């Protein structure tokens, strides 16, 4: 089916589509109607398509002056009641860190897509990298708990974009889709299911309440998931980037600092099993396993098949959720195999929490950004590990 620019969400059917375009169509199906961005390779197709598509569905795609502004506008627009997104790559992701922290402390549903390229700094804009994985965990200052999904195909980029909106709305927090240049720019078959098969999570919205002394407490930490006070609906709540008490008023009190952070981190930590997604291939009888994510998982699958043809009992654990880190999944697999191999297009990032959780030896296969991991280097590592 060819892609038309007709208003409305993409019709169910089978398409041959670029990953970056599939991401935009998924966002629209998820109900996103506000996009703020700044052009950056290799994510620009997302922004360009958003500028064509969002207004057709009554939404907005605004070009901000930089990524600091894009992320700040997302938080404002989300408070105004819209589902919101942006897309970027390494250098822009760095600039967004400030207001990703803001989105986190203000409990703002927002989706940030990072089509990773080569780094550090300007790096290689046009080629693949996976060097922002740790930044998506620890990039913004202070204690954050982040959520990140890593698609390995166009179909999954589509599905995880919808998932990211659902998770963001449910948990009231920023969610990352950590794609990469390969997944973003390649074209593959995409099946768009009938809309009734797609689960869409809508935001819990607060009603104005004048019953309390001044207002109802906006931050009731007895619950993990709180309704959101939407601008202009009469809630009149102070939304505060400083450490704040249950009324949203700033405080330097230790017990308030602890209560707020326990809530912000706890709402994610208490529900990790809801967020963790992974895929196991050939793991039943595996003696050695590859742990991979994103486009690298494609190299890994090829390597595992090759190793199997050579008589090595290899398996693949593909991480779909990387943050919060699925340590229990790693631990379980590591008890069944003799060794884990972690290939990444970086000098070793996700291998660290793998090593922290694994009960068996862990080795890493790395390549500099600019190319996919060569399956042969993974096969070599599997041979060494057996």
């Amino acid at each position, binding site marked *: 089916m060819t892609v038309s*620019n*007709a*208003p409305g969400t993409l019709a169910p059917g089978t398409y041959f589509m670029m990953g970056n375009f599939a991401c935009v169509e998924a966002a629209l199906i998820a109900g996103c109607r*506000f996009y*703020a961005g700044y052009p950056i390779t290799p994510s620009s197709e997302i922004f360009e398509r958003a500028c*064509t598509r969002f*207004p*057709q569905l*009554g939404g*907005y795609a*605004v070009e*901000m*002056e*930089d990524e*600091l*502004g*894009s992320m*700040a*506008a*997302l*938080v*404002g*627009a*989300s*408070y*105004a*009641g*819209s589902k*919101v997104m942006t897309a970027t790559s390494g250098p822009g992701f760095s600039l967004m860190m*400030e*207001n990703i*922290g*803001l989105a986190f402390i203000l409990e703002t549903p927002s989706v940030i897509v990072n089509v990773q390229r080569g780094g550090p700094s300007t790096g290689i804009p046009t080629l693949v990298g996976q060097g922002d994985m740790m930044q998506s965990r620890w990039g913004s200052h202070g204690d954050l708990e982040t959520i990140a999904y890593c698609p390995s195909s166009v179909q999954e980029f589509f599905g995880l974009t919808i998932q990211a909106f659902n998770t963001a709305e449910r948990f009231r927090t920023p969610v990352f889709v950590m794609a990469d240049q390969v997944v973003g720019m390649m074209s593959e078959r995409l099946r768009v299911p009938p809309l009734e098969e797609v689960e869409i999570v809508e935001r819990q919205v607060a009603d*104005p309440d004048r019953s309390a*002394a*001044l207002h109802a407490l906006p931050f009731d930490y007895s619950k993990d998931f709180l309704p959101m*006070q939407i*601008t*202009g*609906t*009469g*809630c*009149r*709540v*102070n*939304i*505060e*980037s*400083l450490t704040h008490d249950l009324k949203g*008023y*700033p405080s330097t009190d230790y017990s308030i600092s602890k209560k707020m952070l326990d809530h912000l981190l706890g709402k994610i930590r208490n529900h990790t099993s809801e967020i963790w997604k992974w895929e196991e291939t050939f793991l039943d009888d595996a003696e050695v396993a590859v742990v991979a994510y994103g486009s690298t998982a494609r190299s890994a699958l090829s390597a595992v098949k090759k190793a199997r043809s050579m008589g090595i009992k290899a398996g693949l654990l593909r991480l779909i959720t990387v943050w919060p880190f699925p340590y229990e999944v790693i631990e379980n697999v590591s008890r069944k195999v003799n060794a884990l191999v972690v290939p990444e297009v970086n000098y070793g990032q996700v291998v660290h929490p793998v090593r922290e959780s694994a009960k068996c030896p862990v080795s890493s296969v790395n390549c500099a950004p600019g190319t996919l991991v060569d399956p042969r280097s993974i096969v070599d590592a599997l041979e060494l590990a057996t």
Partner: protein
Amino acid sequence: MATTGVPVGGPAIKVQRHAKDEILRIERLPHIWCPGCGIGIVLEAYTRALAKSGIPQDKHAVVSGIGCTGRFSGYLDLDSYHTTHGRPIAFATGIAVVKPDLEVTVIAGDGDLSTIGGNHLIHAARRNVDLNVIMVNNFNYGMTGGQHGATTPTGARTRTSPYGNVEAPFNVPYLVAAAGASFVARWTALHVTQVYKAIRRMMEVEGFTFLEVISPCPPTFGQLNGYPDALDEMKYFREKSVVDHNADLREIAISMHPDDSLVVGNFVDRRRPSYQELLSELKVKAAGGAGK
């Protein structure tokens, strides 16, 4: 009668209920601003303008950045947002685009809006986003102890310009007018009525409106630059302010030199389509199948 809500030793102090109690979060008072600071004067003018605007209180939103003026939003019983340093205009743009029916006001200091947030300021003016932006200018970073910023006059002493500021300051009304703002004004903390009237006008004008309010900052900028008492600077405003609505904006840079005048006025009041109006037209165009 109502109490201030402030715990004090001995019997609670009873005060007459103030007309602004409906708009302020009185339980948060007293505010943090120093004696002699002009921010409270702007707060009073804003609440008065809001009450007279004819726009329901629930349809006003206020967004602040970080710093002394950044605390402004927290004292208002509105949808109020205390955001990140320099980003309140970008944050407010998100609100104002999604909810064009709201009256969104950004209030922050000179450091927040014209230094770290300078890029957002000029681009929002260029887009003519329907926002009211009030910049309280005290020529330095007050909350961090008095360092120089983009509005500090050349030669002025601050904690980071102990030998005198070598940099040239922004003339912010000129900058914002050049960028395309629909309304541009400058008054001082002495011009209470003019500040109120300017804010009222800003709430009427569709498009990007900007007001600079010059304020004393006695403990830092004032102390180091010959205005150690708030009244010293207020006296300077009274003696040296020149009202000129038609001033050549190129000529209105501020030196704060006791002999130099300070030009104030409502400099720009013009009509061009706001960003929200244009986005709304764009949606109609897009729904009709135009676009690539």
